[in-house]
């Protein structure tokens, strides 16, 4: 029953820094997802928590215990690997029970725990088989079962679903959510798939280049991305980013121009002055066709999905934006179009890439 604390955690490979000082608090029972592009350090961070990678600097605490120099086996963690890492020469039963056997758990206790885990994962009929005889989804279950029987304080998942096909991935995702609910355990989950992150997490940690970009609930990240990276990474299709500048500032409002477009935003306490370079962020779903809309351009591509229509528009400023429109509208490729949006849905990012709060808080 333990949470997890990371303090100024650093990892260098030789001279190359891969984790550049991560601070993080994870409460007991939380489902935390590390997400980011490949090479961002999310797996490395997970492996440092597991004890599979040295910690160059900083401190990792599981519960109240500093575990920097504790062997992986003594950290009270269990891990599910991307490749599942099942022992090919052992049956499912022995795979699941290997850790208990090494710990010297009496045979009858062991047997009960293995069978309990198998029941939870609905794989009692697989216990006599070997990994080679199992499908991808079944192997996944065994790998999870191996983690469950050890009753760890913290479960670690390293891209566990990436080797499954799409349909199975959705099933396993739901199953993992159920498992988290049933076990009430702390889980840390690494993925590059933002949909997995959004659906599973209590708390998402977005990493890029070895630096935490933002920590928050899925909706926090979606609604108030802390910077351009998070804005571009969370949400599908990606948020449209359009460069522009501040034209006028009044106590209550801001006028933004981007090429020929110009519009007012309600804004207070932002500290922007006229002439400041900014980046506008507008989610594709926030755009709509509006003949009087301020974003004018040419239709480049139309994708009819039935329930909605995705169009790509080349704006006069030379930026391409994506709009997801409700229903099955008809748009001629190459034809002119004007897009409008609700000013409240606009995100503003400063020249440094960080979010500019517009509500004054």
């Amino acid at each position, binding site marked *: 029953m333990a949470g997890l604390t990371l303090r100024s955690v650093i990892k260098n490979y030789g001279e190359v820094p891969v984790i550049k000082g991560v601070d993080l608090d994870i409460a007991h029972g939380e489902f935390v997802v590390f997400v980011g592009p490949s090479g961002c350090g999310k797996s490395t961070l997970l492996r440092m928590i*597991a004890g599979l990678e040295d910690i160059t600097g900083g401190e990792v605490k599981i519960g109240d215990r500093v575990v920097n120099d504790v062997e*992986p086996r003594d950290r009270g963690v269990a891990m599910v690997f991307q*490749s599942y*890492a099942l*022992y090919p020469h052992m049956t499912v039963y022995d795979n699941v029970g290997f850790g208990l056997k090494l710990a010297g758990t009496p045979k009858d206790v062991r047997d009960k725990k293995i069978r309990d885990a198998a029941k939870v994962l609905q794989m009692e009929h697989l216990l006599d088989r070997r990994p080679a005889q199992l499908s991808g989804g079944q192997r996944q279950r065994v790998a999870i079962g191996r983690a469950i029987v050890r009753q760890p304080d913290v479960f670690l998942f390293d891209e566990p679903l990436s080797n499954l096909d799409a349909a199975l991935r959705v099933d396993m995702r739901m199953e993992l959510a159920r498992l988290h609910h049933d076990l009430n355990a702390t889980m840390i989950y690494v993925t590059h798939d933002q949909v997995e992150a959004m659906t599973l997490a209590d708390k998402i940690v977005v990493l890029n280049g070895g630096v935490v970009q933002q920590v928050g609930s899925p909706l926090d990240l979606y609604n108030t991305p802390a910077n351009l990276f998070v804005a571009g990474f969370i949400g599908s299709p990606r948020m449209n980013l359009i460069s522009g500048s501040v034209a006028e500032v009044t106590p209550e409002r801001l006028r933004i121009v981007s090429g020929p477009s110009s519009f007012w935003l309600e804004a207070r306490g932002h500290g922007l002055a006229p002439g400041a370079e900014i980046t506008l962020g507008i989610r594709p779903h926030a755009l709509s066709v509006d003949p009087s809309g301020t974003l004018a351009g040419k239709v480049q591509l139309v994708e009819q999905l039935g329930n909605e229509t995705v169009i790509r528009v080349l704006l006069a400023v030379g930026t391409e934006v994506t709009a997801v429109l409700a229903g099955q509208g008809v748009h001629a490729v190459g034809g002119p179009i004007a897009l409008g949006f609700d000013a409240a849905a606009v995100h503003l990012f400063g020249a440094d890439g960080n979010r500019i709060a517009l509500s004054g808080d």
Partner: protein
Amino acid sequence: MKTATPNTLLARGLIILLMVVTLLPFLSMLSAALAPQGTYPNGLQWPEDPQWGNFIRAFEVAKMDQLLLSSVLIVLGVVPISVAIATMAGYGLAKLTSAKYKWVYLVFVFGLTLPFEAVITPLYYEVRALGLLNTRFAIILPLIGLYMPFGVYWMRAHFLNVPQDLTEAAQLDGATRWKEFLLVQVPLARPAIMSLSILLFLWTWNQFLLPVVLVQDPMQRTMAGALGAFQGQWGTDIPLLCAGSLLILAPTILLFLIFQRQFVAALMQGAVKG
């Protein structure tokens, strides 16, 4: 694929020719072994009255039972230990892959091309200093050392192919390095260990230079070494020599025929990797 037919015929012809060439020496020996004692037989000529008794006499003259025992003892002394320590070292070196430790591996690999003749003279003095001359240990101990380059090379290559994830999973499951090695790595390495055992068995059984130099008494030698002595002693009695040679060959050939698949696989991989 139509044009393949004449080629296949040609290939079959060639292969059958090769097989005949391979087998002829054995047949020629067999025909000579069955010739009456004291005669000087012809190359390949089925004797009118096959003297199967020659084999019995050769068995007694060559003291086949003692020879077999001696060879088995030597093999038992060499192969299990060599395989065990080569497997351990192969695993250790597969974990020490950083450039800083590459030299250890390179030192082992250097031994792959080393002709035994290059070290046989000092080995003689070393074995003599250890007081082991003319004992089976004079063959056993040096062979273990001489097999290390190949053994370590072979097992390391295997362990490099085992996913690192398994090691990590075992670590998280609470295995010490040693337990991981015994319970996870060794069972997985069984095919590689099997092939290595077969090769080392063959090389030991057939080892000639070491017995000739280090052990005078044929009864303390390997089969091949004993065969050399047998030829020295009975070289002029062709029927007896041929019968004795065939007898001495019989155990290996028998084993080979039984485990044909494993032997062939081991020899092919052994050549490729060596």
